[in-house]
């Protein structure tokens, strides 16, 4: 893993921070466990506060729609199409975290 023992800060972004974003966070937790990444800090943000919170995050996970609304942010943005598909989450997180 290219994480070098540092804690990865992941921000799950959705419209209000309590529906799909929460779902993303739970799926990401499961995915990280599968990938063997334990040093991760997961937070949920609504689209309104996401830009500010993105400043301190290493990675953002969200939907395609909201990624467009989010615009350009510092961390890498991973977009998830099927929120309940753990395989998609695992593959996209693996790709993102190995490159980070």
């Amino acid at each position, binding site marked *: 893993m290219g994480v070098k023992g540092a804690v990865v800060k992941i921000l799950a972004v959705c*419209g*209000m*921070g309590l529906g799909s974003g929460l779902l993303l966070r*739970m*799926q990401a937790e499961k995915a990280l466990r599968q990938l063997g990444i334990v040093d991760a800090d997961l937070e949920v943000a609504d689209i309104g506060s996401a830009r500010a919170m993105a400043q301190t995050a290493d990675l953002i996970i969200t*939907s*395609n729609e*909201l990624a467009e609304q989010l615009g350009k942010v510092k961390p890498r943005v991973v977009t998830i199409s099927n929120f*309940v598909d753990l395989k998609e989450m695992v593959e996209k997180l693996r790709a993102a975290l190995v490159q980070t």
Partner: protein
Amino acid sequence: MRASGDALVAGGITTPAYTDQMIATVEQLGPYIVIAPGIALAHARPSDAVLRPGLSWVTLAQPVRFGHKDNDPVTLVVGLAAPDSSSHVQALATLAGLLDDRSRRDTLLRAKTPRDVLAAIVEYERTHAATEAVSGSE
């Protein structure tokens, strides 16, 4: 959307105002609520309109396009009501587990009666409890 709100009202979970809030949310933020192929998760912010945490389940006889690039058309609308940001976490986790398996998801999307849906959920909870026990002993 309205049907999923009506179901929440009928279940004593929300007041009718919550339905309007859910519709306003999707109008404002777009079709991102279509979280998986054929599945929309409708919800609004916690408010006075939420009486207790709950979910509603509406299978549409005619699939509806929400304008989502990958996941349209929608067959299942799950209405989510949360009085705060944490009390519905378990319900969402169960929902995610329930829909993660493709064949179970297909069964649920094709379900014609509440009984079919309930049967699939009961079946999931039974097998899920078993796998939890297995992974817990590893």
